[in-house]
């Protein structure tokens, strides 16, 4: 009974963080801020839901497999976010004008012409 309540709470936490990630993806103004919102919330939400399923399964082979999935997500999701951010910065996507700090500035050679043409090309 206590275990069931704990599982339901973990699943609710997971759905809440996925919802926050969706709101951040739809509402934030910039590629980098969207990346910031989605990566953290997705990692935490998926980890929480998979932890709840591990508690439901108990000690078994499938539980170990889900532990592997959690470990792989914890490793892979920040790596992918870093690769996307670096790739879009090198492609020339500028930051949002309200952003305060740009520590990458001057350390990077751009691959193509900067943003305005890129956005135009997309349209």
């Amino acid at each position, binding site marked *: 009974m206590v275990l*069931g309540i704990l*599982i339901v709470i973990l699943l609710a936490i997971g759905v809440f963080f996925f919802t926050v990630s969706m709101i951040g993806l739809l509402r934030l103004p910039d590629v980098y801020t*969207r*990346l910031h919102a989605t990566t953290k919330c997705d990692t935490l*939400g998926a980890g929480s839901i998979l932890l709840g399923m591990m508690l439901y399964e108990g000690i078994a082979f*499938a539980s170990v*497999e889900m532990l592997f999935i959690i470990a792989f997500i914890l490793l*892979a999701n920040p790596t992918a976010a870093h690769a996307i951010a670096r790739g879009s910065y*090198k492609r020339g996507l500028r930051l949002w004008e309200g952003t305060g700090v740009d520590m990458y500035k001057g350390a990077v050679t751009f691959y193509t012409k900067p943003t305005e043409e890129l956005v135009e090309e*997309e349209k």
Partner: protein
Amino acid sequence: MIGVFLATALALVFIALLCSYRVFAGPTISDRVIAVNVIGTKTLVVLVLVAYIYGQKMFIDISLTYAMLNFLIIIIAAMYLETGKVV
């Protein structure tokens, strides 16, 4: 407990449907790549839930494979963003 899992899976599918707006309307390629990454993570979790809704543990293996495939897709897309070439 199956009903709780079913409700969670349906909520995640609905959230993924809302996220797919960014795939269609995102102003740059990077937005689309981010949205695909988010939808991939949600799919992975829904596959684990489906394994317990249908009672077939095979779906957990599929979910593990999907995690690795999703990571590979994102890394290759980031490589295209950075250098302009795929290989």
